[in-house]
Structures are given as structure tokens and as C-alpha cells.
């Protein structure tokens, strides 16, 4: 049964901004799907508000709408494009929920759009907990296996409290219905816990529904990834076993594929249950994920939940097995059956089989608790990690060690240095799952804990525990051996020990270990991920390293370019860098190079085996990269390694690679250093005649104090060589400076701290540019909406700049060129400027692809990363203009007057984090970046573009209702005009007494409400926080008061987050919002695809 012939066009919904629980994996799946559908000859219409994605590249779909993923906007797109079908299963929960809304509000019927790959009934059966329980019961009746945890569904707090008794008491699990990434779920050990977690759960659930469940804490946890076609063929693509037992969200667990501790009997029972469930739920075609818990004492199996769509685990399973779930799901949705689809890797065999692995895959999560010091770092059933790394090895210890070093985080690798500490204390600590628990367990083992004790404390399966003991024994052998014999070294390498670990144990430098190792000929080989354990020859070069006998890297003739990716997603280094790496790969492949991608992030497009000519799924450490370089040099000519596109990770390796004789193409490591090292950079600026804010470099408090005294407070303090403003703070006085240096002692131990004058009230500007040594191409100029002092990654910005004139652009161009030339850039450079009192200050320059490259590229319809990759390998801007990759004339600084305005808005993860008391964490923006993702709003005028960016990021701006305003004194002067505008637009303004006074003096009627700190009034008058909680406030404008008096603001902002009320924390954002609301009210908001925008821009260029 081949492809359906009645489908001509398909609408694909993406997953929107990167948030915790819904990250780059949906770019990977969506990109695969769009490419497949296009290759099937369908017109692909895509909507995704996230500009940092590959899927929103204009080449990936026929019509790409970077518009908010809300039912309102998607309806506009449907009305315009009239697609035949809608494929909602590849854009995570966002896409699925939007599709259901469109079904339920009749839009799909109205326009005759058919849902494919899912039907609404199946989605409900899979996602609604009560219905799913019925599914599991039906399955049990049919096959005699599978049950749900005992549970009760509740809609009110009274039902919840009563429910606990029916389950036999605490602890109980709370799970809100229809939330993504397990948002709002958790374990309640007593009534206080319960009221808090369940209360929030009721609010989060779109159906005001939570499920209470018996506790299965400490059980073994498994997942199966299944696919079904329309002929009811079902295959299990992958089994996944969690290293961390039940109680930790699978996204936060260390997970292993395939399952390690199941006999065939038990595995087949899970498989039978899984297949019966996918049939009972009625998943039409496509993928689904089912989670199981198994009691380690007796094997009782409980079915936890299913996702009737492509999920984060599907991406992991695809990378782990080489079976491209999203791609196949898209083919199944348009009518193919599994046996009609060839397996890409073997090309000979069909996709209707189950991959078998001859290696072990380990995924480890990456957390960002350092960004949220007040957040509770205990791992629960709510996902808190921001990224993940995956590694493969020929045994579990090798894969585990590789995965831990892929995290690229201090302390993530096992360490055998120093004394381990007290055994009992370590075992007690290991009882609570946290980031790094596995390291605590290893410490406990070193401190003498037995296998039984480790199991008792952690419930980690004894097989895994024994593998940790194996590593500890090898470490002991290494430490005790008189000589580091080849056998011993090989044994350690075979179990994944890095040169650095071996060196630490033997008291040798890592490079000495490496030299010894190379002298002994102990090097890794590269094996192929082939889906079939070598039963058939693999055609796709998808490699991982292992210390084994036979390497499978084939010789090649074309010159290769190795592109180093960005590793696990983290705040400050996310999908934007993957975008640039993927673009480089595409561009260089077209230019005749063999592209070789190195990365360890399973969520990304870069680690899709058909993105580059060769893929090495490997840690991005010096040791691992050098081995890849060696293997590729053996295979054929090597043109060089690209380090400037993957963010700080490859940049940090650049100098060491060069020192080891590896050719770096593009901007050289010395130039990178020139930009990072403040003194050297100062000289560059001086030579170019450019002012920078007064600044200095300090290694101690005394030095820092001297600099700050000279510059004058407030100052901006930050460690050098970090990304994402890690550790960056505005320091207002001397005691704060002292405490800053104390708190960041770790970060500044190796590199000095930088102290800059903080430019209050300045306009911040970001510039992305290309430089080839002679010519500058100004990629784009972005004006921040928030004032300077908020990290550029967290602030909204507009392109083209909304308030800058031709004179400013000219100055920016000259400055950028001066810096690019002075530093020696060959490729991309990003510079941050601050315009203060008509002086253009240079804040910093980064000679690499920036976070804004994808946004700039989409806003100006020019592929900057592709151009940068070409320039790195010697092409000139003039050549690229002639080729058509860059516009023949002009650049991002000379956009036509009628070019659209693009607004980028950051998306913050506040709602994910609670402090140890269960209270929300504060939401104020600052110089340290904390956003996880971004959206783009694009339209003809600024107001509409801004409104779209807000709708995409946080939900639509309100067009009526009550707006609460409370601002710091310094903002009060700027408050009157936007507040008046809001009243004129029909809003009722609420304000606390101080702000209300200012407004009333300005002739603006304001209703005074009680501050949180005032408490409830004598007649039950509610405070603003209560009003927010009661859902009576539609928009909040609350600017922080500087260092003191923040508590009220804290309560207001956390209430806003928990209720999902738009909350603006700068007065500039308020001004922008007013323009947006005005545009919405005039109903002038339309939708336009990037392709249409590009056509207009390009027409304007001619």
C-alpha cells in the first residue's frame, strides 16, 4: 500500500521555543519530517516560532511561518494555505495541544483539514490518565499482563486529600493531566507537600485535573519506543533502561540502551504489553513511547504512561539505534507501511524490523542549577535538566565514562583524587537523587561502601552498582601498579577512562598519558552504528569510538572538514550553535568538501546521520577530538577543523588543537585569545580608535576594589572565558564586590575577573558580521528592547534597529570593521555595543558564531553561518556575493526601508524551578543569562512583531482587562505615556499606592490595590498577589527596585509565573507591549511566510 495520492499539501506544527522538557529534539524530528514530506512531492507548510531551528530554514519547507503556535495564528495560516492535512505528532506537546484545540474549536472541520499520524480519540486515550488506565485494563484482559499503579483522579483539593487514604497513605505521586515534561508533578510525603504540589498541578492542568498514585519509588524503570503503520505492523525500535530508579523524571535520569537487566521473558512481556497498548489506544501511524516500572523484588510490571507522539526519548532512540523514528513516522503518516520503507543505513533491508545493538548507549542529563541558586536541586518527577549528552561504547563503563566527560562540566567525571570522605555521610547523601549523584555513589564506593549498602541507599540496580565497582577496581589497579603496563593502560581505556583520569590517578599530565599511549599504539578504533549488529553491511558512516580491535573508517579522496559541535545544550549554549554547525556542513558539502561532524548531543540536527558526510558521536574533549582527527587524517586529506561555530566548547579546544598540529580554519586561536584577553582587546580598540567603558582586570579583591573605586559604582563584574554571562553581576557597592569575589572564587581561579563600568540607561546593540580579511559584511544590527545590563541572551531585541539612524549604523559598521580587522577574524564576529549619551561603547567582541546568527539570518534572508564556513575555508565575501550566497550589493545594515521588523524574545524557565520550600524562584532579568530559548515575531511594523513575539513566548498579550503596574522610582517618569495609552485602549489600571499616585498626578485613573506586604485588608480586601492568583489580572508590569525592597516584586512575579500572566519587568518592554496591543486591537495582524518576506527583502535590494 503505497503513499496516499489524495494529499497535496501538509501543515507541520513545530514545538516553539526551547524550554525544559521540550528542546532541540523536536527540531531534529521536525526537520526530518519536513524533508521527507517534501521529497515525497508534498507542499510542506510549517509553523514554528523558534528561529534558532533548522526546520525554520526557508529551504526545509515550502512555506515557513515563524509565527506564534497558538490556535489563532495557526488558523490564519490554515485559512491562507488551505493544507489538505495536518501532521501534529512531531512538534511535541505544543503541536499536539494546538492540533487538539483546532479540532475542538472546529477549525479543522471548517477548512476540511484532516489530522494525520494521530487521531484525537487516540491522543485523549494516551494522554488522559483515566482513559489510559482503562486502556491498560483492557490490555490486561486481552493478554494477561500489565497494570496501572493504583490511583485516583481528582479535580479539587478536597478530593485530593481524601484520595490519599484510598491509596493507603503517603508517599503518593501527583501528576497533573496534559502538561509537558511532567510539569507540576512530584512526590508528596505529607499533607503540606500534597497541598502545594497538587494545588499547582490543578492550576497547570488545562483540564484542572490531577492524578494521585501509589508510590513505586525505587522500582526499575524502562521505556519502549514503538512504531505502528496503517496495516497494524508494529516494531519496537529501542528499549531504554533508567540507571536512576523510579522517582526521577526520565529526562533527568541517566538512561541506558538497550535494557541491561531484563531476561528475554521479561523483555518480551514488556514488548507484548507495549504492542497491545499502541493497538488499544489506536495510534494510527507513527511513533509512541511507553514507560514501565518493574518491582525488582518480584517483577510486577506497572505501565506508567505513554506519549502518543514522537518524544524526547524518540530522538534519543533514533540516535542510539540509527533508526530515524521521525522520518519514518512522517512516511507512515502519508500512507506507506514499514515494509515499504528502506532502512537508510543498510539500504538493503526494510524498516519493518527491530534494531539490534552491539554497543551500549548512555545518556546523561545536564543541569543548570548554578543559574538558579535558590532552586531546589533535588530530582523529582518534574524534569529540570536543560540538556543531555549521549555516548556509545562497547561496554557500559566505556559508554558511561564517555557520557560523563561529554557533559563538559567540572566534576562530572569520576575522580579518584584525594580522600573520598565519610562513607555513611556519602551513602546518606546518595539517597536523595540530585545532579551528580552517581559521583557521590562512586565516592561512597571509594570510602568502602559495599554493593549491598549502595543498593540499599539508592536502589540502583545491583548490576549497575557492580559496574561502578568494576571502575573503582580498575582505578585501584592503576593506582597500585608499579608500572603503567600496556595491558593495564589498555584495560583502563577499554573501560572508558580518559587520559585525564588515568593521569590524575598516576600523577601524570594528560598529555604525558596520551604520548605514552600513542607510543604504545593504544588508540581507539571507530565502529559503525548500523542498526543490525553487523549482520548487514552499513552504508552510512555513523561512528563511535571504542578501545577494540578493528576500525571501520573507510578511506576517502575528497578533502575533509571537521566541524566541532557544541555538546550538550545548556543555558547560554543551545540550539543556535547547532544551527550554525549544520549550516556549515550543508555549505561545505555543496562546495565539494567531505564534511565530518563531531558532537555528543542526541537532541540535535547535527547528530542526524544524514546531515554530514560522516558523523562521529563523540565527546568534545581534546583527547577524543585528537583521535578523530588522527582517524580522519589516515582516511584521506584533511582541510581543517572548524571551531568557531559551536560556541564556547570547540573554541575552548582551539589553541590546544593547534598546539597539537591540527589545522584550524577560519579565525585562528590567537585571534580568539585577542578578543577574550582584556588587555590585548583594549589595545585593539585603541588602535581602532574606539571607546570602551572604563574597565580593568583583577585577580584579587584589592585589585578589584582599586578598579571599581576608579571607575565608580555600579560596576559590571564577570569572570573571563565564560559564555552566557555565567557569574556576571551588576555590583552596586564595595561589600557586594567582596561577596561577589568570594562566591565566584571557583570561576576566577584560573582566569581573572573583569570589572567594567556599568552603563546605566544605555541602549544595547548586538552586531553579527562576516569578515574575510578585506571586506566586512554587516549581517545585522539588533537593538535591545531592555536597557544595558540585561544579558543579551535574555533581552528582547529588534532587527532592523527601531531607534537607530543611518549615522549610528555607519558608526557601528566602522567600529565592527576596525575590531574584525584588529582581531584577525576570518568568518563571523559578534560585537555588543552600548549607546550611552551618544557615545558608542564596545562592551565585548566574540570572534565566533553568536547565539543570534540564526535570528539574524532569518530576519535578513541571508545564510550567515554558511557564508562564515565558506570564508573559513578561503572564499571571499566578493566571491560569495558573486555566487549568490550573499546579496550582490548591500548588507544587513542597509536593509530596504520596507523590510519587515523582526523581534526576538527570550523564554525563561522560571515555572520549572521551586526553592527547597516549594516556592517559585524570582523572575528578574539580569546580566547572567537564564533563558532556555527564544522566539521570533516578524511583521511589517514593530508593534505587531513585538505582539507576535510575546504570543510566541508567553501567550498572547491581552487586549482588554486589568493591568497591574508597579515600577521602581527611576522608571516612574517613563511610565505615564504607556500607562495613558493602556487606559485609552480600554484597560483598567491597578497600582500600589506609590505608583498610583504618580499615575493620578499624570491624569491617569488608577485603582489602588494592597501590596503583598500589607496583607489582606480589614474587610477582606485582597492583595495584588491574591488578585493575580485569583485570575483577575491580565497583564503585569513590574520593574525590580535594585538591591533592596524586592520582596513584593518577588511575590508578584512568581505569582504571575504560576498563573501564566504576562509579566514585563522593564519599562521599555511596556512601551513595546502597548504598541503590540494597539496592533492587536486594530486587528491588523496577519501571517506571512519567511519565503514571502525574503522575496520582499530581495526585491527591495534590487
Amino acid at each position, binding site marked *: 500500500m503505497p503513499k496516499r495520492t489524495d494529499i497535496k499539501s501538509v501543515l507541520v506544527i513545530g514545538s516553539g521555543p526551547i524550554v525544559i522538557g521540550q528542546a532541540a529534539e523536536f527540531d531534529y524530528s521536525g526537520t526530518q519530517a519536513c524533508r521527507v514530506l517534501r521529497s515525497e512531492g508534498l507542499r510542506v507548510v510549517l509553523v514554528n516560532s523558534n528561529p534558532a531551528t533548522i526546520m525554520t530554514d526557508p529551504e526545509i519547507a515550502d512555506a515557513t511561518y515563524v509565527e506564534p503556535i497558538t490556535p489563532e495564528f495557526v488558523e490564519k495560516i490554515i485559512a491562507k494555505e488551505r493544507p489538505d492535512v495536518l501532521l501534529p505528532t512531531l512538534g511535541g506537546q505544543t503541536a499536539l495541544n494546538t492540533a487538539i484545540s483546532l479540532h475542538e474549536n472546529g477549525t479543522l472541520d471548517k477548512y476540511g483539514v484532516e489530522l494525520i499520524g494521530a487521531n484525537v480519540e487516540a491522543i485523549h486515550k494516551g494522554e488522559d490518565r483515566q482513559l489510559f488506565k482503562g486502556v491498560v485494563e483492557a490490555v490486561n484482559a486481552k493478554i494477561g499482563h500489565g497494570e496501572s499503579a493504583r490511583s485516583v483522579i481528582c479535580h479539587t483539593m478536597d478530593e485530593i486529600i481524601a484520595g490519599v487514604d484510598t491509596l493507603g497513605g503517603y508517599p503518593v505521586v501527583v501528576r497533573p493531566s496534559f502538561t509537558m515534561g511532567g510539569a507540576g508533578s512530584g512526590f508528596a510525603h505529607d499533607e503540606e507537600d500534597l497541598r502545594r504540589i497538587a494545588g499547582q498541578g490543578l492550576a497547570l492542568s488545562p483540564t484542572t485535573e490531577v492524578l494521585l498514585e501509589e508510590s513505586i519509588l*525505587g522500582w526499575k524503570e524502562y521505556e519502549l519506543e514503538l512504531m505502528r503503520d496503517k496495516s497494524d505492523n508494529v516494531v519496537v525500535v529501542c528499549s531504554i533502561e533508567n540507571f536512576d530508579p523510579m522517582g526521577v523524571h526520565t529526562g533527568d535520569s541517566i538512561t541506558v540502551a538497550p535494557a541491561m537487566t531484563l*531476561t*528475554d521473558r521479561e523483555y518480551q512481556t514488556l514488548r507484548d504489553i507495549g504492542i497491545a497498548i499502541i493497538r488499544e489506544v489506536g495510534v494510527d501511524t507513527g511513533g509512541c513511547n511507553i514507560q514501565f516500572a518493574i518491582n525488582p523484588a518480584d517483577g510486577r510490571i506497572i505501565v506508567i504512561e505513554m506519549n502518543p507522539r514522537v518524544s524526547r526519548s524518540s530522538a534519543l532512540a533514533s540516535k542510539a539505534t540509527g533508526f530515524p523514528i521521525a522520518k519514518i513516522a512522517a512516511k507512515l503518516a502519508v500512507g506507506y507501511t514499514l515494509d515499504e520503507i528502506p532502512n537508510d543505513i543498510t539500504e538493503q533491508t526494510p524498516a519493518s*524490523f*527491530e534494531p539490534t545493538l552491539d554497543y551500549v548507549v548512555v545518556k546523561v542529563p545536564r543541569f543548570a542549577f548554578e543559574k538558579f541558586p535558590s532552586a531546589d536541586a533535588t530530582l523529582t518527577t518534574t524534569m529540570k535538566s536543560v540538556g543531555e549528552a549521549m555516548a556509545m561504547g562497547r561496554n557500559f563503563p566505556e559508554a558511561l565514562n564517555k557520557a560523563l566527560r561529554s557533559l563538559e562540566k567540572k566534576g562530572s567525571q569520576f575522580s579518584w583524587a584525594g580522600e573520598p570522605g565519610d562513607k555513611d555521610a556519602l551513602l546518606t547523601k546518595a539517597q536523595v537523587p540530585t545532579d551528580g549523584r552517581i559521583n557521590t555513589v562512586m565516592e561512597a564506593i571509594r570510602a568502602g561502601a559495599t554493593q549491598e549498602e549502595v543498593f540499599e541507599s539508592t536502589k540502583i540496580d545491583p548490576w549497575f552498582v557492580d559496574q561502578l565497582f568494576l571502575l573503582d577496581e580498575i582505578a585501584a589497579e592503576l593506582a597500585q601498579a608499579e608500572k603503567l603496563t600496556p595491558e593495564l593502560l589498555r584495560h583502563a581505556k577499554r573501560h572508558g577512562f580518559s587520559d585525564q583520569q588515568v593521569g590524575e590517578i598516576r600523577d601524570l599530565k594528560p598529555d604525558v598519558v596520551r604520548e605514552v599511549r600513542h607510543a604504545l599504539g593504544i588508540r581507539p578504533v571507530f565502529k559503525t552504528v548500523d542498526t543490525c*549488529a553487523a549482520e548487514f553491511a552499513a552504508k552510512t558512516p555513523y561512528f563511535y569510538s571504542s578501545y*577494540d580491535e578493528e576500525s571501520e573508517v573507510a578511506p576517502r579522496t575528497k578533502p575533509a572538514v571537521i566541524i566541532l559541535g557544541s555538546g550538550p545544550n545548556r543555558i547560554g549554549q543551545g540550539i543556535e550553535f547547532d544551527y550554525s554547525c549544520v549550516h556549515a556542513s550543508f555549505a561545505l558539502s555543496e562546495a565539494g568538501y567531505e564534511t565530518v561532524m563531531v558532537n555528543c548531543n542526541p537532541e540535535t540536527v547535527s547528530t542526524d546521520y544524514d546531515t554530514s558526510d560522516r558523523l562521529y558521536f563523540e565527546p568534545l574533549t581534546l583527547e577524543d577530538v585528537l583521535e578523530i582527527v588522527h582517524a580522519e587524517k589516515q582516511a584521506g586529506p584533511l582541510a581543517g577543523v572548524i571551531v568557531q561555530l559551536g560556541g564556547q566548547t570547540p573554541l575552548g579546544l582551539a589553541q590546544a588543537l593547534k598546539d597539537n598540529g591540527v589545522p584550524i580554519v577560519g579565525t585562528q586561536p590567537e585571534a580568539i585569545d585577542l578578543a577574550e584577553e582584556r588587555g590585548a582587546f583594549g589595545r585593539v580598540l585603541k588602535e581602532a580608535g574606539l571607546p570602551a567603558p572604563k574597565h580593568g582586570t583583577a585577580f584579587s579583591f584589592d585589585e578589584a576594589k582599586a578598579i571599581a573605586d576608579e571607575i565608580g559604582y555600579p560596576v559590571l563584574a564577570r569572570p573571563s572565558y565564560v559564555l552566557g554571562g555565567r557569574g556576571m553581576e551588576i555590583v552596586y557597592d564595595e561589600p557586594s564586590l567582596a561577596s561577589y569575589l568570594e562566591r565566584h572564587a571557583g570561576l576566577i581561579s584560573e582566569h581573572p575577573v573583569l570589572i567594567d563600568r556599568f552603563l546605566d540607561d544605555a541602549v544595547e546593540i548586538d552586531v553579527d558580521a562576516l569578515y574575510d580579511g578585506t571586506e566586512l559584511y554587516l549581517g545585522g544590527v539588533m537593538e535591545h528592547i531592555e536597557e544595558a545590563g540585561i544579558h543579551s541572551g535574555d533581552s528582547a531585541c529588534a532587527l532592523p534597529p527601531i531607534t537607530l539612524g543611518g549615522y549610528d549604523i555607519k558608526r557601528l559598521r566602522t567600529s565592527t570593521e576596525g575590531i574584525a580587522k584588529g582581531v584577525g577574524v576570518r568568518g563571523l564576529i559578534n560585537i555588543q555595543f552600548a549607546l550611552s549619551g551618544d557615545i558608542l561603547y564596545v562592551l565585548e567582541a566574540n570572534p565566533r558564531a553568536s547565539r543570534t546568527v540564526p535570528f539574524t539570518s532569518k530576519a535578513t534572508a541571508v545564510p550567515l553561518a554558511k557564508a562564515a564556513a565558506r570564508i573559513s575555508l578561503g572564499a571571499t565575501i566578493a566571491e560569495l556575493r558573486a555566487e549568490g550566497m550573499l546579496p550582490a550589493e548591500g548588507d544587513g545594515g542597509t536593509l530596504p526601508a520596507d523590510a519587515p521588523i523582526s523581534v526576538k524574545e527570550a523564554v525563561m524557565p522560571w515555572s520549572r524551578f521551586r526553592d527547597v520550600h516549594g516556592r517559585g524562584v524570582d523572575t528578574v532579568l539580569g546580566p547572567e543569562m537564564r533563558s532556555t530559548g527564544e522566539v521570533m515575531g516578524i511583521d511589517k511594523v514593530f508593534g505587531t512583531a513585538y505582539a507576535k513575539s510575546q504570543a510566541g513566548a508567553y501567550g498572547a498579550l491581552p487586549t482588554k482587562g486589568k493591568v497591574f503596574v508597579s515600577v521602581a522610582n527611576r522608571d516612574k517618569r517613563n511610565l505615564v505615556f504607556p500607562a495613558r495609552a493602556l487606559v485609552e485602549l480600554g484597560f483598567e489600571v491597578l497600582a500600589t499606592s506609590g505608583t498610583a499616585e504618580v499615575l493620578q498626578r499624570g491624569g491617569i485613573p488608577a485603582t489602588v490595590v494592597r501590596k503583598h506586604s500589607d496583607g489582606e485588608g480589614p474587610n477582606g480586601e485582597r492583595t495584588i498577589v491574591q488578585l493575580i492568583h485569583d485570575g483577575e489580572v491580565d497583564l503585569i508590569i513590574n520593574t525590580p527596585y535594585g538591591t533592596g525592597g524586592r520582596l513584593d516584586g518577588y511575590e508578584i512575579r512568581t505569582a504571575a509565573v504560576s498563573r501564566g500572566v504576562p509579566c514585563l519587568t522593564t519599562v521599555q518592554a511596556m512601551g513595546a507591549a502597548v504598541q503590540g496591543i494597539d496592533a492587536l486591537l486594530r486587528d491588523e495582524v496577519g501571517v506571512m511566510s519567511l519565503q514571502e518576506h525574503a522575496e520582499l527583502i530581495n526585491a527591495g535590494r534590487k
Partner: protein
Amino acid sequence: MTAPAPTTLRLRRERVPAVLVLEDGRSFHGQAYGAVGETFGEAVFNTGMSGYQETLTDPSYHRQVVVMTAPQIGNTGWNDEDDESRRIWVAGFVVRDPARTPSNWRSLRPLDEELTTQGVVGISGIDTRALTRHLRERGAMRVGIFSGPALADEATLLSRVLQAPEMKGADLCAEVATTEPYIVPAVGGKRFTVAAVDLGIKAMTPQRMAERGIEVHVLPANSTVEDIYAVNPDGVFFSNGPGDPATADHQVAVMQGVLERKTPLFGICFGNQILGRALGFGTYKLKYGHRGINQPVQDRTTGKVEVTAHNHGFAVNAPLDKVSDTPYGRAEVSHVCLNDDVVEGLQCLDTPAFSVQYHPEAAAGPHDAAYLFDRFVDLMAGAPAARTTAGS
């Protein structure tokens, strides 16, 4: 919740050197696993990620040295419930990373303890993927594993490997099958009696039949037509088993006797090859066989694809594109492996007989093909006349 007692047994075995030598001269050096000594057999690889206990006890692996492509083996230890026969049959066992501490609530002892007890010589710590690729490219071949006192220079070891018998032309089923008949009673009410000719039958096969109300009379490999009809069967079954089907003339003749009587007939694996030969088709040795639990087989009667357990080095040579005329009426290929178009099932159109090359009883493996036992039941339920003619 009661926690399982983690197995305290720690296997701190010395690293005893071992070497694996293939008949084409390639060798791999590792450590002894299981018994120390020497062993010979045909080197084959199995791609299943679970079910090593079932694999080891599957009589079809008699005289074969099994290379597990999954690297971590032994993780769930050994229990006394999952055996597919009374003992381990593999001639040798090749793994990369054996478990030290098994973990499973049903585990009674570690795998390598069981291997040692049963005298199975194995090797660990070698590049099993390189070995598998070698076998894929060069085909299954003779192999020897040597450790301890059996070690010698490689030329000597190679000459010992070359002296070992080949699989082609080997008549092995009598070596593994039961010598005495026995009965597996039906579960619940008895509906049918089946005479099952044991050529190396796996325990799960009679169990799958028993679950469907079949009383299974398991008969020795050398049983005659008379022996079969002595149990007054509603259906006859020919099991899986080791060796070259070209040597199974006796069983082919017996099956022809059953076909003549039109008794419902079902064959699995070796039984499929015998049906092929009984119908007049040839059999041949595959380059490296199918051994795994992930093989896509299409039921050509329904178009559906099932994921199935395979263990076969030989296959039937029958035309895929047409119905064949045979001495027992028309016959066709009912199942085919989608990976390589190997014949995976035969079906007679004028005689109540069918067979599959793979393992619907699974163990190890997925249960997708369990419906074939239902087909056998349907055949028996729908063909009562066949039995009445049997005694004549």
C-alpha cells in the same frame, strides 16, 4: 517494598588467556570464559540482545560456537525456568563483556558458573563485532577456542580446527533428540492430540501447543510413520533441530507418509526444510545464516509483517513468484524474510500442511508469530476426515 538481596558472589576470576582460531587462519585473543579447555564447532553469530539462556539451551545450536553480538552478556544470571531443553548445547560461547554480578529476581547463579558446570568452553574480551563482520563476509566456518592446557602455537591450533567436522553434511538431530517418547499434557481441557517428532525440539514449542488444548506426544527423531500413527494424532509436528537437512532422508520419508494421509501437519525450522524436501524442493546452506530475534518476515497470505526469532543456517529453495506443483498437490511460499528474500514458510494448498523456517514459539524472541499455532489448531479443527484415513 522488599529489596532483592544483591548477589554477593563476586567473580574475581584471574584473567586466563584464551584464543579463538577460525579455519581461515584469523585468530582473536581474549580471556577464558566458562570452562577452560578446548572446543570446536561451526562459528555463527547471534544478534539477539536478550535471551542468552534460551539460546544456549536450544538444541539447534548443537556443534555450533555462538558469538553473541550484544556485548554485555550474563547480566541476568541463570535460572531454572528459562531452559529450552535439558542442557546447554552450544559447542562454545563467545562474548565481549561478561557480567560479574548478575541481577534479576529469578537469577539463581551466574552464567559463567553454569557454563563451567556444564563444561562449556568460552572466550571473552574479544572484538566480537570484528569477528561477526568476518563471518558475514566469509561465511560461517569452523572454529576452535583454546585456553589453559589446550593453548599451543597458532599453527598447531589451526590444524586442530581444520580436523574438526564441517556442518555441511552433518546428521545431528538424533544426537539431541529424546530417545524415549514423552507426553506434554494439554493445559485446561484437551482438544487435540499431536505427534511431535523431536529433531531438537525446544521446550516452548510443546508448551505453546499445550496452552491451546493440545496433548503433545514427543517422539524420537527416528520414529516411523507407524510410531506416529500409534498415538492416534489429530496433527503431526516436525520440530527444529541441528544439522544439514540434506541428511534427513528418514524424516523426509516419514513426512511424506504423513502428507499422503493428509493429516494436518506443521513444521518449524528443520521441520520446514523437511517439508521442502518432502515436496521436492532443494535445501541449501546460507552464507552465514539467520540467528537473531529481530528478523522481519512477511506473511504473504495477509501481507502483514512480523518480527521473528530465527536460528537457521540452511534454507529451502522454492520459487517465490509462483505456485508449485508437487506430488502432494499445489504448494507455495507463504512467508518470506524481507531482509534477503529467503523462504521462511511453505504452505500446501491441497494438503493440510504448512511450515515455517523461523520460531513462532519464540523463547528467545518476540511473540508476533504465535498465531501459527492457532493456524495449526484451525487446521486440525477443520480437517477431522484426515484422521479417519490414517489407519488404513
